């Protein structure tokens, strides 16, 4: 029932946004072909954040203390263990997969259902991993930037990854509504950073798009191939080129 109402809300939002998208006529951008659709969705998400998520998360901050919010974040991180395990196995990271099992066993028991993270102190540090990263390691390209209603920045590959991550989480099946608490809690913890990003960016949409793609590229673990992201036009080649001063002689200067 929950899922159905969420789906209805989503399709309604999509419909409303689609009509807005058709009305706007931004110039086509090869780096972000879906921008005419993404921008209105972004505005919608920003509105949801401003009027719902941010106020709720500030209320949450008000009634909790930092240590508790950290612990809640750790609890959710711990429950995402299956997705990290599967992703590590899928990338033939046997050692890390075993580390994840050990971390899960320790933190679920000694760490009181994952609210604490003794495993890190005992020399088993956390390492983020998800199904989208596994797809990336397999060589699946991310595809165009995609601003998903309510969920935020993504791309087709990572969106499918997120669907798997969600399906692999026991909370999805056994604790309805847990995701909402998780979302509010992470929004609360990131509040200062999000507001700082809003203030410092010139175009918050582009800030988010670029940060998302850069972050995902480095998470997949091959930051050498940043140029593979998006259309390639976006990153103007490999990262080394980012640090070449353009002297106007038709692009690249000094020969290597």
């Amino acid at each position, binding site marked *: 029932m929950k899922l159905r109402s969420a789906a209805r809300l989503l399709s309604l939002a999509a419909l409303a946004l689609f009509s807005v998208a058709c009305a706007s006529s931004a110039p086509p951008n090869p780096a972000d072909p879906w921008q005419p659709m993404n921008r209105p969705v972004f505005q919608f998400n920003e509105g949801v954040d401003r009027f719902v998520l941010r106020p709720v998360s500030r209320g949450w901050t008000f009634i909790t203390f930092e240590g508790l919010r950290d612990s809640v974040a750790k609890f959710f991180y711990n429950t995402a263990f299956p997705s990290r395990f599967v992703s590590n196995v899928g990338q033939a990271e046997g050692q890390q997969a075993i580390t994840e099992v050990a971390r899960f066993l320790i933190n679920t028991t000694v760490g009181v259902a994952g609210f604490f993270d003794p495993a890190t102190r005992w020399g088993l540090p956390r390492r983020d991993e998800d199904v989208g990263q596994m797809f990336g390691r397999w060589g699946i390209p991310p595809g165009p930037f995609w601003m998903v209603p309510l969920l935020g920045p993504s791309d087709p590959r990572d969106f499918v990854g997120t669907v798997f991550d969600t399906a692999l989480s026991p909370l999805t099946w056994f604790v309805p509504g847990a995701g909402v608490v998780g979302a509010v809690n992470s929004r609360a913890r990131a509040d200062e950073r999000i507001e700082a990003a809003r203030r410092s960016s010139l175009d918050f949409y582009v800030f988010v798009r670029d940060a998302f793609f850069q972050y995902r590229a480095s998470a997949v673990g091959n930051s050498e191939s940043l140029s593979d992201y998006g259309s390639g036009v976006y990153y103007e080649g490999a990262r*080394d080129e980012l640090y070449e001063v353009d002297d106007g002689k038709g692009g690249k200067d000094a020969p290597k």
Partner: protein
Amino acid sequence: MPRSSERRRAAALLLGFALAVAGANAAAAALSGPESEARSFVQQTIDTVLGILRNGKIPLEEKKSRVESIAYERFDFELMSRLVLARNWQKFSDKQKRDFVDAFKKHLSATYRDTLNTFRDETIQIGSSRLEKNEDVTVMTIVTGSTDTTSVDYRMRKGDHGWRGIDVIIEGVSLVQNFRSQAQEIVSNEGPDGLIKKLRAKQMTSPHKKKA
């Protein structure tokens, strides 16, 4: 002469200790000249900044100004501006170039000041470093807070005035690349003046009102 032999032993011990220290330093220096230079530059900067931030006697606004002036000295804002504008740099007139560098510098340092509000006694450790193909050096640091660790890499370049930071890469996200994407989008839609105007408007609307 028991006393003199004791003294000799002490001297030998000291010498041995000094050699061991020198050896350790040599091992660190074995990284290659530029790499160890850049590392010690970053280390010294971090020590200075943390020294200021952790000093309970200095009021917050004073801390911010001091840290800001360190940033002014230790980043090459003109080069960063050129890297951000990339091909667009040529589209800017000399005046627009000057205006952009100036506005960008102010914008970055305002942003930097802003982040100091959230400083909560994190520790910063220098990790590995990398000599880049073009002889820049990337120095990687790990910032450890109460629960999370964040990787912050500094891309360093040696110019006429010694080492300067030319980029900050947080969790794999390069600041130069990120601003380049934004600048690209704005310049192609609104031209150089549009970009400069946006930068200046940001400074107007980002007072240090948020403290909660």
